[in-house]
């Protein structure tokens, strides 16, 4: 047990020693900063070295200044101190100033200064100064370079990253560095952000001025603009430089002891309005990897948190439920397409109320989107709302992630019978008294089934009766006309009746034959034959002689053989009626049949 305590103690001791020993400026208590006012400096030029010790203590320790071996001390060291007590906070600072002159050209190192105070060590930065052959360029040149002409004012665009994925947030900070007084800043040209979706950080109205040492020279820094950029496509994207115009108070160059310049306005300095241009920002944009890319990837890149809530899980039918979604992230939430949420089918869903706001967290803009859906269940039962999942890409780990909200089970009670009717109904009086009334009971008798799609007007009985009646009518009309014709039109009547009469006569002849009255038999046959032609041709039968009949028949263009047969019969009949002679009954019967056949043949021609 003692052994473990000993180890713990040793560990703690080492940690504190590490912290104490190696903190160059321990931030909280004392800050030591070394700076020069020109870098590079000409071999014949004087420059100023300053060491500032700043702390929250009443008394500050004395530093031991470096050994300026490569330089000649022209003046100093001199000390100036500044003591501030604001709202209970103590800020004590001492500045040691030495004017130096280079001995020769080259690059030299002024080592850092270490001070000890209350057992703690504080170290300043070291300075690497370049001594050029000629004199260094005057401080107000607009050209900016990395090696550092010691400019009085310059503008920098600082991106948070050099490479990013498509739709990943990258912030660019536009800062102005100045070591002379500047006034009335004005944007001459804003950076062009082609290929980016841009959101802007909201900076405080009173821009704080910080201090930084660049190339050993101390500058005041103010952040004028900060943009959050979301690249919309892969490749090498550029943001054009920003241009800023300011009034610059020019320093007087002749004053060797120009240490006072930074402390108050020199009324003898001129104010010139100059335009400064920042660097452009180059960003290498990669597309999100295709490998393992989920099908429902929303396109969001960055961090994401999701919260889903409902305000109640048990409601009655037609009561509203509020379903809230809260999305927060560093991705471009504005590019998020509509979320596809499947609510239960019998829930009526209204368009969501969407609220968006943005706040800053560190170097990123975090956007929050709140969507509130109002759901009204229209039927009772148990329903599930599936959990909502959103897939995004984490650029830090370079993986796809899915974040899922809660799932909910909603119990919908039927409510009372009356509330099953519509909540917002304004029913007319006649209908109000029907509320709550039950439906009539089922029908139990006379099923009277018919096939589905039965069309009564397609049924056979319908068309059958109609068609048969129509035909009946046509037949009746025809018959009527026939009767009328028969009554009025002699020719027609005679013609139609001709065969009938002739047959009657033949029948009469037959009767005579049976009685053995041959003369009468032949007479009737003769009359029958002639009468037939007379009727058919509407000629008076009385006085019609054989030759007339022949003429009539020939007029009708009847087959000559038939006419010959007819005349032969007629002649025989006429002959025998007056002189029957010894005709046998068989002969007579045969004659009879011949007459019958002839008549039917003849009938075809009329």
């Amino acid at each position, binding site marked *: 047990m003692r052994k473990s305590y000993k180890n713990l103690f040793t560990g703690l001791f080492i940690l504190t020693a590490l912290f104490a020993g190696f903190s160059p400026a321990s931030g909280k208590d004392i800050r030591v900063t070394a700076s020069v006012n020109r870098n590079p400096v000409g071999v014949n030029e004087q420059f100023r070295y300053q060491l500032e010790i700043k702390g929250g203590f009443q008394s500050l320790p004395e530093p031991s200044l470096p050994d300026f071996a490569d330089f000649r001390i022209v003046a100093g060291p001199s000390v100036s101190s500044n003591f501030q007590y604001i709202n209970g906070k103590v800020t004590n600072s001492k500045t040691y100033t030495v004017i130096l002159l280079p001995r020769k050209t080259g690059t030299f190192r002024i080592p850092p200064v270490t001070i000890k105070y209350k057992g703690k060590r504080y170290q300043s930065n070291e300075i690497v100064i370049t001594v050029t052959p000629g004199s260094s360029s005057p401080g107000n040149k607009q050209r900016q370079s990395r090696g550092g002409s010691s400019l009085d004012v310059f503008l920098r665009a600082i991106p948070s990253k050099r490479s990013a994925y498509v739709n990943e947030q990258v912030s660019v900070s536009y800062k102005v560095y100045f070591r002379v007084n500047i006034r009335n800043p004005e944007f001459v040209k804003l950076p062009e952000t082609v290929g980016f979706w841009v959101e802007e950080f909201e900076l405080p109205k009173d821009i704080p001025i910080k201090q930084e040492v660049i190339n050993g020279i101390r500058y005041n820094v103010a952040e004028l603009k900060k943009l959050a950029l979301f690249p919309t496509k892969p490749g090498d994207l550029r943001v054009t430089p920003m241009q800023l115009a300011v009034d610059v108070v020019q320093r007087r160059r002749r004053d060797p002891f120009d240490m006072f310049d930074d402390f108050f306005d020199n009324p003898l300095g001129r104010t010139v309005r100059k335009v400064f241009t920042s660097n452009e920002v180059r960003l290498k944009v990669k597309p999100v990897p295709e490998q393992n890319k989920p099908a429902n990837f929303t396109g969001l890149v960055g961090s994401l948190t999701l919260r889903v809530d409902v305000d109640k899980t048990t409601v009655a039918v037609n009561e509203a439920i509020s379903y809230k979604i809260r999305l927060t992230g560093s991705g471009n939430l504005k590019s998020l397409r509509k979320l596809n949420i499947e609510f239960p089918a*019998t829930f009526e869903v209204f368009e969501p109320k969407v609220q968006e706001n943005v706040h800053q967290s560190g170097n990123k803009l975090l956007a929050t989107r709140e969507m509130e859906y109002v759901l009204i269940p*229209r039927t009772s039962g148990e329903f599930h709302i599936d959990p909502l999942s959103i897939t995004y890409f984490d650029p830090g780990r370079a993986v796809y992630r899915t974040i899922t909200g809660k799932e909910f089970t909603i119990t919908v009670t039927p409510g009372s019978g009356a509330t*099953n009717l519509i909540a917002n109904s304004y*029913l007319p009086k006649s209908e109000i008294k029907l509320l709550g009334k039950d439906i*009539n009971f089922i029908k*139990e008798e006379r099923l009277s089934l018919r096939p*589905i799609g039965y069309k009564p007007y397609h049924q056979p009985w319908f068309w059958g009766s109609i068609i048969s009646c129509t035909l009946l009518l046509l037949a009746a009309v025809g018959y009527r006309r026939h009767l009328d014709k028969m009554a009025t039109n002699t020719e027609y009547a005679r013609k139609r009746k001709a065969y009938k009469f002739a047959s009657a006569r033949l029948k009469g002849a037959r009767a005579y034959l049976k009685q053995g009255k041959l003369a009468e038999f032949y007479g009737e046959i003769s009359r029958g034959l002639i009468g037939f032609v007379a009727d058919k041709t509407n000629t008076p039968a009385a006085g019609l002689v054989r030759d007339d009949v022949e003429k009539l028949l020939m007029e009708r263009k009847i087959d000559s053989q038939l006419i010959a047969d007819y005349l032969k019969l007629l002649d025989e009949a006429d002959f025998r009626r007056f002189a029957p002679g010894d005709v046998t009954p068989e002969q007579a019967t045969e004659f009879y049949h011949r007459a019958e056949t002839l008549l039917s043949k003849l009938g075809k021609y009329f």
Partner: protein
Amino acid sequence: MDFKINTAAGTRSRLRNILLFLFTITTLLTAQSGSKRFFEEGNQAYARGDYHAALQWYQRIESMGYESSELYYNIGNCYYKLDEIGKAILYYERARKLAPHDKEILENLQLANLKVADRIEMPPRFILFEWWDAFKSYLTLSQLTRLSAISYVLFILLLILYIFLRPPRWRKVVLILMITAAGAMLITSYLLYVNVQHENKNKEAVVLAPVVTVLSAPEENGTDVFVLHEGVKVRLDEQRGEWTKISLPDGKNGWLKMETLGVI
């Protein structure tokens, strides 16, 4: 013909015909009695309160290819009790089509319509149009066909009588009767024609889905025009693929997917 019956092959084919005939008769008879039994079983299930079972019995009759206003009415009742208002209204409307003046059907339909979420404003119509509509639909289609056929037959018979009758007094009587019959025939056949046209052209349907959004065009991303709830009766105007154009009595119209509707 005598030869055919007496051969062996002839005897076999004749036997087959007899059997076929007997078979058809028995199936027809059993089908009829079967449906009656299903109906009774369904009624008993309904009386017990077992609406699901009752529906199953009734729907067996429907799947056999038969319909009647009583059957549809009972099915409508089942759906009403099961709180499926859309289907209830659909079947009540089908029942009403077959029996337009049945009091029970009309009352139940009225009660079911109270449960429909949307109140459709019926525009006021000219009173004569209302009368004409009532007159047009007073008789059912089968009644009209029967009447028009009968009046036609009467007309023809009287006409024939008129043609053959001689005494003028009788002729006058027959003429008057004939003209009446002709009038009846013309009116009934005109009504029949109008109703047939109406039935073939005016297709109506009932919304079956709980909530539907009617769109301005027959495609998924058409603009939303308005929302309808289960049980609303709509008129079908046009059809394009799986979409149909519907219109309401108050003039609103738009496109819906066929699957959300039940055709009356």
